[in-house]
């Protein structure tokens, strides 16, 4: 008998930091059964957490009744997470890569989310569809 493996997963949550644990559980439960290595699972979870936190803070400015949609597509050699929000957009090119030495010396707080996403994932693509939605695509390749 042929087994049909599910390889796409979806969740929609409210734009609250309370939902971060639900998003993390969703990622873990979606990709762990496929045998993805723990290290890769952890990186994907943290990247999606950082992305969702940024949406709550910067896209929706802490309004809790908005929507965050997460779509996950699993391939044998990669995992692609697409995150949609309907709030304010930003230009990722305007956010410079932090100089971590200087960052630490000046004891800055915040602003590490995008840097972490770029460090943890193989690809980070952001597109804003003016007046419609913002789409962030995070891709992790499995070695």
């Amino acid at each position, binding site marked *: 008998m042929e087994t049909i493996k599910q390889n796409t997963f979806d969740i929609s949550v409210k734009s609250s930091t309370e939902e971060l644990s639900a998003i993390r559980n969703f990622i873990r439960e979606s990709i762990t059964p496929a045998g993805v290595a723990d290290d890769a699972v952890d990186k994907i979870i943290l990247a999606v957490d950082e992305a969702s936190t940024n949406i709550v803070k910067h896209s929706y400015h802490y309004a809790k009744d908005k929507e965050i949609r997460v779509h996950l597509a699993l391939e044998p050699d990669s995992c692609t997470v697409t995150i949609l929000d309907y709030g304010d957009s930003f230009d990722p090119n305007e956010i410079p890569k932090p100089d971590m*030495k200087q960052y*630490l010396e000046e004891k800055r*707080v915040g602003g590490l989310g995008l840097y972490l996403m770029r460090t943890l994932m193989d690809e980070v693509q952001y597109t804003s569809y003016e007046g419609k939605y913002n789409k962030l695509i995070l891709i992790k390749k499995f070695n």
Partner: protein
Amino acid sequence: MSEFFTNIKQQNQVNIVELGGYLDAHTAPQLENVFSELIKEKKFNVVVNFEQLSYISSAGLGVFMAFIETMRENKGDIKLAAMKPNVFNIFDLLGFPLLYEIFSSENEAIEKFIKQ
């Protein structure tokens, strides 16, 4: 089940903050309150025991950045101890070992304060 918890104890003039669970943008304010309270009570020698902490995001890391200067200006410090490898990896990825002393056990971190 608590998503995140803190427990505070004192040993040899060192204040030990035990962390457990998940430290993210939702739970970070709880830890900020703990540090604010320590500062209010003029307790500047702090060891953070990470043994039971399963997860940290940049919002959690930010709490340590926000309070380290106040502790050091008052001749204290925040020393970190007993991190699980996955938690240490995030600190390490961002270069935090340059700024914070990280020990493998709570006792080693306490010893360092006593010897100072």
